[in-house]
């Protein structure tokens, strides 16, 4: 009788230990051993990897808003002839390194697809290659369908540029980042800022204690 009781107690005891060992997860040396297949996501969708910096969701939100703003600007909407716009790289004043052409490229893409010819763009960032091409045509190294001696490079009516400014704070492992995205359309002749749009995003989070 006593033996049966002892066997029962010891079995429960050792079972508890073994159970704890398994629950505590000693056995799993590899996290997610089968991996995560590539997942296609919309650029405005939050992914698994999230920080407090500039992400594709912000890019989409901000550039969509800016493109709508520019289209509503009188100088573009009511212009007798579609103005020529040059993109001037944005200035990054945040603590996050960013691909600076990405914002303006997307705004340009949105404007071209939605403006129905109300705004036209000049490839000023390609000037070196374009000048070389023109020079080779002028020197007869390349053929030309028009007179290469004639100056046909167009001047800009407006410059579209922007700035990313930020403010960051950190306390007790928590991080907070505020970023102001501001864009301007500047009249190339008068230097007048004819349109300005901004968007702001604040993010914060607290890292796991093992990283604090």
């Amino acid at each position, binding site marked *: 009788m*006593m*033996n049966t*009781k*002892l*066997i029962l*107690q*010891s*079995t429960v*005891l*050792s*079972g*508890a*230990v*073994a159970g*704890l*060992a*398994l629950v*505590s*997860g*000693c*056995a*799993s*040396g*590899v*996290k997610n051993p089968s991996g995560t297949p590539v997942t296609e996501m919309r650029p405005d969708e939050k992914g698994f*990897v*999230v*920080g*407090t*910096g500039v992400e594709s969701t912000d890019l989409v939100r901000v550039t969509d808003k800016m493109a709508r703003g520019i289209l509503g600007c009188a100088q573009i909407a009511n212009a007798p002839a579609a103005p020529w716009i040059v993109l001037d790289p944005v*200035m*990054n*004043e*945040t*603590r*996050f*390194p*960013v691909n*600076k052409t990405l914002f303006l490229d997307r705004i340009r893409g949105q404007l071209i697809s939605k403006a129905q010819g109300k705004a036209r763009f000049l490839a000023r960032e390609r000037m070196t290659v374009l000048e070389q091409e023109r020079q080779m045509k002028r020197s007869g190294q390349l053929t030309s369908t028009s007179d290469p001696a004639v100056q046909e490079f167009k001047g800009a009516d407006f410059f579209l540029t922007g700035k990313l400014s930020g403010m*960051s704070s*950190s*306390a*007790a*492992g928590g*991080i907070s980042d505020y970023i102001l995205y501001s864009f301007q359309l500047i009249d190339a002749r008068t230097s007048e800022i004819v349109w300005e749009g901004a968007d702001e995003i604040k993010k914060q*989070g*607290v*890292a*796991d*204690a*093992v*990283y*604090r």
Partner: protein
Amino acid sequence: MRVVLQPLALAAVVVLAGCATHHPKRVALTGDPLVDGQNALQQGPARDHVLWEYRMAASAFRRGQFAEAKKWLDDALPRIGGIIANDRDAKKARGLFHTEARKMFIGEPYERVMAYYYRGILYWMDGEPDNARACFRSAQFMDADTENKTYAADYVLLDYLDGFITARLGGDGSDELKRAKASAKNSTPPPYLTNANVLVFLEFGHGPVKYAAGEHAQMLRFREGRSSARSVSLQVGGKKYPVLAYDDLHFQATTRGGRVMDHILANKAVFKDTTSVVGDAAIISGLALASTGEHNEAAAIVGGLGVLSKIFSSATTPEADIRAWDNLPQFLSFAALTLPPGPHEITLDFQGADGRTLVTKKVTFTVTEARRDLVLFVSELNS
């Protein structure tokens, strides 16, 4: 008694075997961070990826393989810049029965600072000073959350470079210079040379070494790396410029104060000690009871609990994570020069505290456009 102890022993085997079986394969090291890093990325545990990317980036940087260095840093930075929360491995690392080294390595703040610092230099080399400044700002931010606020965000060079770039881009930069001067210990940075066209980043000495102290190796500590060089004599165009270190990574590693994780590890150590003492006491009591020959059932239960407590104690892992970015320098410095267009040679004498030259390095380059920044990086360390 045997009836009780046998299943307990079996349970102990389950615990210990369970912990030992699925550890990832150890990768043999060659001593070349670029080779070892590639092997580690392919065969080693994912939690060490950032560690190897750091090491490979530093090594590639010193070999002049800047595209390679960028690749590794660009992969590592989003991981260290993000907020790691609700992470299963991090949760386990906090648990009693897993070591801290179970977590994904992103490094202590001085290591994260260096990842941003190197990436900043690479951005500047590519003609993107504002992105370089962003990296220097993020680097300084990594050091902002110290226990002792006296030492929060106190890298001299990071503030100096932030202000230097701001001034070069038409901004003010005077606040940053003020902060840099206030944080200066070894040497005070000079006023900005805003018309400089050659920017020389220098590093020397070996970075801090991590070790674990305490009875259960639960305390993360740092000791100074091997560093004989204390300054650099920079010579160009017949002129000598003495360059002192602005920042010392050993100082930075040791002045942050405690981590939250230190408290967790200390608690684990207390649990380990307590369960061990309780286990000893219970086993001795069980044996004493058994020796009377009258309380066998109680003896078995008390003794069994003692063994259980000892198993818990043995399975508790309070060891601090001492994985380290082990090819970092100790000292960081910077010099800005204005040189005329044409070919140049810079001679750099890395000197000890007594002024004796320990290592000499020469860099040749051509200044092609007077206004374009030419960024040079010279390390006393081998790749």
